[in-house]
């Protein structure tokens, strides 16, 4: 099976609220006096009308300034955000390596969270049982695995997160700046493993501000700004284009 991702005129917009929750009283009062809800927020497009085809074999790097819409695009592909217009079609199983501790329950032990996280990735307890040993070993968390993860340090969170994702044979791997987790030893070990994962996966999408890393891992790079794709192509030319932008912004 060949994986692919196809987005068609994809848009995602966010509202910035002046005052978050609306109470029932406010809602009724607003309605009665014709004061629109619209006065209370401003909207902007985090992803604006993006049509993008990603095929099996693509190692796609996404670069851009903060707030360019890179992470929103990743989260939309991962199914966390539903598009406001346009569509997205994905063939293949997605393994997200996005936020540390995503899909963890703080009250459960590390070991229990392996199963929870596996379940969220679509694996049965029996399948996770087979991977449990490897995950435990890779994470080097030892006895800590029997502790509720609310007692974990952020480094330990990162180790567990990464170790689970690393054992799941991804078809589509989505990475959002999670390389530097844990101590120097684990960073080295996880960088090695990421290379293997990139090798195994059909599609890899990486968001990073580390251009060196993008250059090493990717065979295609897009530059995003204000929710649109400015440039799409081979790493040399697009990264050159992005560098010019950075220099321009610094002036």
């Amino acid at each position, binding site marked *: 099976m060949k994986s692919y991702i196809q987005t068609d005129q994809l848009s995602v917009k966010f509202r910035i609220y002046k005052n978050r929750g609306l109470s029932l009283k406010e809602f009724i009062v607003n309605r009665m006096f014709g004061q629109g809800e619209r006065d209370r927020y401003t909207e902007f497009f985090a992803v604006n009308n993006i049509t993008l085809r990603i095929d099996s074999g693509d190692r796609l790097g996404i670069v851009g300034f903060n707030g360019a819409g890179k992470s929103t695009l990743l989260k939309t592909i991962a*199914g966390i955000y539903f598009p406001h217009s346009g569509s997205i079609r*994905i063939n*293949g*199983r997605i393994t997200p390596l996005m936020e540390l501790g995503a899909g*963890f329950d703080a009250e459960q032990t590390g070991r*229990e969270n392996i199963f*929870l996280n596996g379940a*969220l990735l*679509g694996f049965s*307890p029996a399948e996770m049982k087979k991977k449990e040993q490897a995950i435990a070993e890779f994470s080097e968390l030892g006895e800590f695995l029997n502790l509720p993860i609310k007692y974990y340090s952020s480094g330990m969170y990162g180790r567990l997160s990464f170790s689970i994702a690393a054992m799941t044979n991804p078809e589509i791997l989505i990475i959002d700046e999670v390389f530097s987790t844990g101590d120097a030893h684990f960073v080295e070990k996880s960088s090695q493993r990421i290379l293997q994962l990139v090798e195994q996966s059909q599609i890899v999408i990486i968001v990073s501000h580390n251009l060196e890393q993008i250059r090493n891992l990717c065979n295609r790079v897009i530059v995003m700004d204000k929710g649109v794709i400015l440039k799409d192509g081979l790493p040399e030319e697009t990264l050159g284009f992005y560098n010019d932008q950075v220099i321009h912004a610094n002036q």
Partner: protein
Amino acid sequence: MAEESFITEYNAEEKGGIWSFWIRNARELIRFRHAIYNFVVSNLRARYRRSTFGFFWSLLNPLFTMVILSVVFSTIFKNSLANFSIYIFSGLLPWTMIFNSILNGAMALISAERFLKKVYIPKIIFPIAIVSVEAINFLLSLISLFFLAIFLGAKISWVLFTLPLALLITALFLLGLVMFVSMLNVYFRDLFHIVQVVFTGLFYLTPIVYPLEFVLNSPLLSVVVRLNPFLYFIELFHSIIYRAEIPGVTTWGICIVLTLTSMFIGSLVFFAKENDVVYRL
């Protein structure tokens, strides 16, 4: 799993009806069945973790409540204590399930924020997990308290075989309600507090600590009590456990109509907003 090929599609332009939503969600529920199982088990475990009596609280808690209520209200109504405690027990357990489902259900999506904003997960999982946990707790309490009920003189009959059906209908009714309140509460955060007050009041509008006949004398009260939808669900359990009779056709009928209505409204509200909710948490 790795050999399986699946295509996922998110299309903002495609608006389906309730049926297409349920079909899509049913498919997702099968895919995420292990996650539901995990949520239910960990919730049950967390409830009793670190307490000395552990699981026995699911027995002791309703037991003490029942004893207190029985002593107080059998004195007020001058009923026989033994008989009245079975009455209270058969109404109080389903009420606890109703009350906890709605109250925890109101917070179901809000407290799932850490999942909803970080991983893909079908939202319907959270209302389902809440109602399942409460239904299981009901069963656990029921089974353990039943020994006491027998001791007090409850009749054991084959009528009890209709209990699973009554539980299923009640759980589905609650699922619809929980879908409704969990979604609405994201948009109007005051709702949680309103629900809390309303249900404390409803407890006294439902014949649990007093017999139904008690309110039938007053024409106003009997109308008000009959308008309370929970009356009919509690009646199922009174009938099966307390009177050892199969509930009447009218009671079943009213419960089924109420369940269909709540599921319809719950689905309508839930599916209309499920894609928007992550932007509002």
